């Protein structure tokens, strides 16, 4: 759920970055969102640990506040900010090809979103490959990580900054809510199907790609939102995996319970 919270809470960061740089400069926006992502993580932990607020409530209080702040900032600078609530909430991937980068020589080198997403993609891959062991240990056993001298806090904040980067990069295309579907659904589906972390990561990538392609065709066929369709397909894939796991585990349960019990 922290991913969900961050995807909403980066909004004021984006708006401030936008006001500060005066353009939709991706790097400034990424920095703004990264800072807000870290701030969100910090606030949630602060309220939970120092304020003794239960953790689900501190998540809820923090992200709704920051999102409200973002919307207020957008309204306050309506004339200056070329962002609107609808775009923030559900984005429009169909417009991505229209916003292209044109080089000084006049050569059109393709949609800017592709470069932004591509860069973030490479950064994320690099982060996961370089930090794989640290991430693995701090995720599964923070106590053990600390005893090995790996700072669980530092890696947690690093991970959360990458969640924020990803969110911001995707946000123009799919919006703040649907990016949550892509953060959670493929990973949850893969988690159902395998125990191995490496396999889970690869599997979730494949599921993510499948839902993107499937969603694209679904949206084309009924002329609806591509992002919405992608999230729907991701949900359906999860449903299939869930039913599959239920059926196979029931079979296993039957076999074991059918065996005679020797007391």
């Amino acid at each position, binding site marked *: *759920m922290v*991913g*969900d919270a961050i995807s*909403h809470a980066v909004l004021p960061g984006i708006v401030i970055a936008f006001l500060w740089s005066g353009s939709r400069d991706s790097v400034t926006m990424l920095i703004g969102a990264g800072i807000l992502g870290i701030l969100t993580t910090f606030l949630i932990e602060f*309220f939970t640990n*120092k*304020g*003794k*607020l*239960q953790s*689900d*409530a*501190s*998540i*809820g*209080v923090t992200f*709704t*506040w920051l*999102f*409200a*702040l973002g*919307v*207020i900032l957008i*309204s*306050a600078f*309506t004339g200056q900010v070329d962002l609107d*609530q*609808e775009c923030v*909430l*559900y984005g429009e991937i169909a417009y991505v090809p229209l916003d292209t980068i044109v080089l000084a020589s006049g050569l059109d080198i393709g949609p800017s979103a592709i470069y932004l997403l591509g860069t973030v993609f490479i950064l994320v891959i690099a982060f996961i490959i370089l930090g794989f062991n640290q991430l693995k240990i701090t995720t599964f056993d923070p106590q053990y990580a600390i005893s090995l001298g790996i700072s669980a806090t530092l890696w947690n904040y690093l991970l959360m900054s990458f969640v924020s980067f990803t969110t911001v990069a995707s946000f123009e295309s799919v*919006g*703040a*809510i*649907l990016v*949550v*579907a892509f*953060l*959670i*659904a493929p990973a*949850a589906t893969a*988690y*159902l199907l395998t125990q191995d972390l490496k396999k889970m990561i690869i599997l979730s990538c494949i599921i993510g790609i499948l839902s993107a392609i499937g969603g694209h065709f*679904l*949206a084309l066929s*009924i*002329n*609806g*939102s591509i*992002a*919405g*369709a*992608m*999230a*729907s397909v*991701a*949900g359906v894939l*999860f449903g299939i995996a*869930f039913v599959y*796991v*239920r059926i196979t585990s029931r079979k296993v349960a039957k076999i074991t319970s059918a065996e005679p019990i020797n007391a």
Partner: protein
Amino acid sequence: MLENLRNFFSFQDINVLYVSLGTIILGASAAVVGSFTFLRKRALIGDAIAHAILPGICLAFLLSGTKNYLLLIVGAFISGWVSILLVDYISKNSKIKEDTAIGLILSVFFGFGVLLLTYIQQSGNSAQTGLDSFLFGKAASMVQQDVIIFSIISILLVVMVGLFYKELQLISFDENFARSIGLPVKGLIFMLSSLTVLAVVTGIQAVGVVLMAALLITPTAAAKYWSGYLPRILLIAAFIGGFSGFSGTAISYVAPNMPTGPWVVMVLSLIAFISIFFSPKKGIIAKAIIQVRHRQRIQDENIIKTFFQIAEAEESFGEPKTIKMIREKRYYSDKLILKILRRLKRHGYLSQTKEGYFLSSFGQKKAARLVKLHRLWELYLTDYLRIAPDHVHEDADTIEHLITPELEKRLEEKLGYPEVDPHNSKIPYD
């Protein structure tokens, strides 16, 4: 600006009255219902419901072809319900944790809703305009009819909470106990979920999908800092919810291009932050002050005790002691010792001459009492709990700061006013 403010509070414009009433009622009733989901530690379920009602609204519209308000609410209600059931089902029947299930269901449902919404918008049905008010809220454009519907639903919510107050309280604090005394826990949870869905379906039109969670969670989060007694928490939460609803409306009226919903949430959040930091008993600052005072008292008492120990060892009561002498007994830094000595002087425990510091008669009494408590406790531990004499010092060092006069008296009586402690040191009495 002032003009606008005056206009707002005079309620000349009947719509202002409706919008204010509407947001107050919504804020207050959502806060009351939200308190119970909060206490059941399932605060974020409201967020899931808020997102999940979108496909229900769209499907209701697609099936009926009209924007019949009641049908849309029924549709929203059903899909909100399905989402709760799915979250429960997934988290109970697989290794997926509840918060992952919540995130999954809310985003997938919302995605499906957006897909349907865009499909409807592109289908060219002219009746569809305004469906997205469910997404972003439309507090500022509430009319009399909306307020009447809100009021009916809110009264229903509050009445239900009132009727089942005891039962809801039990399932919020101790579900197992509620089950053991034969309460229909499943039915009650079903009812609470229905109330939450209903609160979300109505509230969402004021503040929109994303911020709905705040109306449910934040008032209770703030109220918990002011009271630990449930009826009072409910009252405070309802008041905070209503007040924020009203303030949000006022702000967006005074500054016309400001959105109502986000300002409602902004006011709510500010109240919550003030509560978290400044609440006199449970606030972060109050707690920090108590902690600092406690630490200072222990430091003070330790230094006072050190004076006694030096004097006892050298049989030099009443003679001045230097910082160096103190440091040899107590491993504090010179700076800290100096700070503590100044504090003690200010409070009348110490006097200072050229040669050094010495305890006042007041300070001597205090020192004697501390040493007495320490030694009595050591004796109690060895005599009554059979702990070896060389293991009792640490424990006594902690407890000497905490023993009350009543406890002190009972210790003395129980041990029969002993002369010496387990290490043969004399126990000082007044």
